[in-house]
């Protein structure tokens, strides 16, 4: 009788479909995956440890570099946690602008995802279309924040500064135009027979498993679970906007694609509402010991200059306590659990990385499937290694 021998192959860490430096050890029976063991850590920078040596303002810059497709949402999650510790109220205008930035960033992140995911599966055209729009968004964000990838623009207590006058026009133009662009992606993929054959009934994750594995974000919603932090625990005035949470039914790669596409349309809707009802007013909280003064004041008022210097150099003391704050990042629930011991540096800053926890379900998803489907499954989870390895 012939003996069955499994073959072990190494996928990654340098492999275009692993979206970074993820390494998978696959045990194969022919083309069927018997066992998959992910190895991570190639991008580990010790962000949680580093934050313990920095003041609260300095640690903000670390958050940009977690999920680097999504800097502004990361800033937001961190700021929400520290603001909760400080117990300060953020002005309405800043809250609305934060929502707008987060949604722009969500669209940009989803565009990057659809571009690379489709490229993995073999549809190259989508890549160019999606990157065209992503470029527009990055341009718009650059107008306000001055940076494309690592903005550090959402600060503790509000925003670094208000948006410039030149911001609104391109933003409105984009919002009016974007639904047609999503239609374009849909004509390329949604009814595409090859796309459907590669993605339907591939990489399914049942509702129960998804919850048990702690999966969040579009992957969870594609399994039909209604959980979105924006609706469940509204932050930054999300409850004042009208939007829907798209759900999937079959929990396969195709449904994850559909959920993300619909999410982009909803995000566009939210941005439109922000632009319509953006209130006037300050973009920084009135908390003199925490929020740095305006740049103009620093140059004309000695007291402001001293205050600026003190806040930037020494930081500010945060009341003893511990809080958890989370946002719905494009990947899922991004949470910060910050413990303060009453000094100017975080005693412990724990990041709940959505990609890390979603990736934990990958072996469950791909075991028993074909090796070619592993590529589709990894793409559909939408991981960013900067966040997984921290």
């Amino acid at each position: 009788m012939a003996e069955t021998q499994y073959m072990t192959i190494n996928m990654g860490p340098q492999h275009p479909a692993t979206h970074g430096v993820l390494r998978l050890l696959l045990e194969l029976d022919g083309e069927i995956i018997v066992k998959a063991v992910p190895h991570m850590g190639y991008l580990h920078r010790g962000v949680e440890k580093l934050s313990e040596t920095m003041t609260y303002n300095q640690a903000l810059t670390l958050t940009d570099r977690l999920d680097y497709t999504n800097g502004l949402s990361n800033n937001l999650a961190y700021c929400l946690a520290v603001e909760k510790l400080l117990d300060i109220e953020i002005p309405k205008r800043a809250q609305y602008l934060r929502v707008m930035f987060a949604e722009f960033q969500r669209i940009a992140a989803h565009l990057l995802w659809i571009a690379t995911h489709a490229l993995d599966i073999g549809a190259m055209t989508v890549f160019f279309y999606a990157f065209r729009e992503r470029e527009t968004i990055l341009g718009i964000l650059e107008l306000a924040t001055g940076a494309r990838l690592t903005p550090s623009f959402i600060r503790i207590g509000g925003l670094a500064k208000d948006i410039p006058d030149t911001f609104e026009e391109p933003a409105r133009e984009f919002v009016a135009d974007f639904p047609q662009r999503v239609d374009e992606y849909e004509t390329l993929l949604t009814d595409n027979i090859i796309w459907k054959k590669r993605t339907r009934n591939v990489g399914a994750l049942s509702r129960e498993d998804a919850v048990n594995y702690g999966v969040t974000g579009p992957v969870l919603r594609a399994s039909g679970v209604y959980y979105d932090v924006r609706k469940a625990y509204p932050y930054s005035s999300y409850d004042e906007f009208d939007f829907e949470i798209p759900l999937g039914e079959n929990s396969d790669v195709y449904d994850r694609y559909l959920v993300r596409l619909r999410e982009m349309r909803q995000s566009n809707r939210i941005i439109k509402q922000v632009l319509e009802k953006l209130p006037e007013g300050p973009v920084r909280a009135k908390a003199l010991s925490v929020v740095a003064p305006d740049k103009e004041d620093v140059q004309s008022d000695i007291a402001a200059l001293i205050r600026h210097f003190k806040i930037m150099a020494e930081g500010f003391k945060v009341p003893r306590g511990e809080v958890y704050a989370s946002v719905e990042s494009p990947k899922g629930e991004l949470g910060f659990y910050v413990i303060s011991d009453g000094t100017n540096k975080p005693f412990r800053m724990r990041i709940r990385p959505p990609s890390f926890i979603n990736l934990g379900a990958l072996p469950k998803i791909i075991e028993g499937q074909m090796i070619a489907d592993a590529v589709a499954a990894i793409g559909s989870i939408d991981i960013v290694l900067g966040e997984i390895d921290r």
Partner: protein
Amino acid sequence: MSRADEVVNKLKENFHDGIIKVEEFRGEVSVTVDKNKIRDIMLFLRDTDKLLYDMLTDLCGVDYQCNAGDAARFEIVYLLRSSKFNDRLRIKARVREEEDCQLSTVSDIWRAADWLEREVYDMFGIKFNNHPDLRRILLVDEFVGHPLRKDFPTEGYDFAEPFSVQLEEELNG
């Protein structure tokens, strides 16, 4: 009675001494429990009708080395969420360094704990008994020390010679 009070009362009724401390800060409730009863308590929280904490949102470690006195050095923090009641609860278990830094795994209760416990093991050196695959997850297997411990220097022990990695063959002679 708020939902949080209800949950805490239920826990106290069923576990008496197992509940060490209940704190509330900024509307978030943390319950410190006896680490020897962690599995019973977690199963109770997941399976009891009116609790149903079906999701483990996060699990992490904290090092309180600087704490004076005989307090336990480590704390394992579990953040639970109930999909049905849309409700969060934080459970903490204290782990003493003198008792070999170990406690029971919850990875069979929530599979999410599998990797999260590996990360705590990696970063703090706390062992989870009966974990199916307790290995380092982010750092290399040969790494010495546990970086998120407060006594681990931020720049590492190999700051002067960061690239002197020993190959497996050399290690095996």
